[in-house]
């Protein structure tokens, strides 16, 4: 599994399994969309959490490491998510809450990672990517 993210906490927690994007949340989604077109499969919902797209500057998405058949459902979800980002009202983010947004985002993505590995004795995140390689 790969985690595409602009969240430094996710990068710190997941090491090599994280593709870090130095950009906006929307840039993360667009990057993932491009991966989906190349055959990666979407593993977590791009609108995870109830924090609205225009409230948090942080976003992480899980995709498969392997490329396979073009997955239509993945792209449909992603296009809808990008549409939500583009059409809902925009506003400026408040910088000093960035860490809270990062923490929530980390927790959401951990819950996805735990689902992926729930048959293993996996509870806490560790750095180093080896165990996420699938």
């Amino acid at each position, binding site marked *: 599994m790969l985690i595409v993210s602009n969240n430094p906490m996710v990068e710190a927690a997941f090491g090599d399994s994280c593709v870090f994007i130095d950009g906006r949340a929307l840039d993360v989604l667009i990057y993932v969309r491009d991966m989906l077109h190349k055959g990666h499969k*979407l*593993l*977590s*919902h*791009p*609108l*995870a*959490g*109830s*924090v*609205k*797209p225009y*409230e948090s500057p942080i976003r992480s998405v*899980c995709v498969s490491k392997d490329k396979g058949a073009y997955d239509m459902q993945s792209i449909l*979800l992603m296009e*809808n*998510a990008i*549409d*939500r980002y583009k*059409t*809902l*009202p925009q*506003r*400026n983010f*408040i910088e*000093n*809450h960035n860490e*809270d*947004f990062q*923490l*929530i985002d980390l*927790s*959401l*993505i*951990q*819950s*996805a990672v735990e*689902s*992926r590995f*729930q048959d293993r004795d996996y509870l806490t995140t560790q750095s180093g990517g080896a165990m996420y390689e699938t």
Partner: protein
Amino acid sequence: MKLELGYIPITNIEFAERSYVEGSTLYVSKEELSDVLLQDENISSVSFAIALPGDKTRITPVKDVIEPRVKVEGKGGMFPGVLSKVDIVGSGRTHVLKGAAVVTTGKIVGFQEGIIDMSGPGAEYTPFSKTCNLVLVITPKEGVVQHEHEHTVRMAGLRAAAYLGELARELEPETIETYEFLPLLESIERYPDLPRVGYVKMLQSQGLLHDTYVYGVDAKRTLPTLISPTEVMDGAIISGNCVSACDKNPTYVHQNNPIVHDLFKRHGKDLNFCAMIITNENVYLADKIRSSDRTAEICGYLKLDGVIISEEGFGNPDTDLMMNCRKISDKGIKTVVITDEYAGRDGSSQSLADADPSCDALVTGGNANEVITLPKMDKVIGTEAYVGIIAGGWDKNKAEDGTIQVELQAITGATSEVGFGYLSAR
């Protein structure tokens, strides 16, 4: 299962030397309640405030709202698996301080959480402007991290509600309502000609500040299952969900689930309410597929004729909702869904993040992006410091005269997706 709910109406709360109920006034001893709450080592201090309907008071940021109840007969205790030992609840008798509520507030993260205005235009949008609220302001000890902090505030709210509920144990209820939920076969035998109706209740289950607990278990680690609606009335489901104030379900709304109550009203007359299924809303897509598959399988197995599906939260649960709706409809079962909308401030954007043609009967809690101006209040319980940054507020929203502009999504319960409110949209 047969549960009697005995209602003791409460129309006023006052602080007093000791805690008791007299007439319809709930007297609360701050000292006694403090002692109960300060058992939690993570709490540095707790303060209390009272907010009554019509007061020029604003409570913010609101975390959870809980109704004081006590189990007086039957197995188990209030909030099983969390405050009471794990045991099946939902039978016997439960007393309710109807009209009273515990509201918890406190900063956990520097954003989110809701507003309850006790009067003015904002009061029309939140059901908790009509309850007599005992507000807990919890300050954690230094170094308590967000996960622990959320847990601490959640538990404090439940403890306070259980403590107040206990005051109703020996009281004579003014009214008693009886809810009987029969085993499926008996139910069908009794009402052979009525359509079999189920309720699929989706629970937010995604991570920190997005969680719901069933008998103490984190809902994201569960598969959809059957539950008696009377169990839910006894606090089997509690909220750890602090995000999206307008459309999350506070514990109070789980206890008083309006779909359950309105289905019971028609039960035995127009329909046979014979199944309640709880399912989750996970981040991981395979979980969404698994849970919606299982939910539809259960509905099909029970040969239901009709199902109401309720959602919780914004965005990705729209996908769970549509999957549930499509898969249940594919079984030949008639569906109605309840959701709310994020159609932008002018209402012209797409309302939902997902759609499906099977979803042809939808009830909406309204457009959560609609902007409302709230007047300055005489008293603020908690702090308005976060109003500019909680969901639906935005920077520079506070005018010179103290009025604030927020989207409806900042208001607790404004666009309820279990249909607790009257708001809608066209």
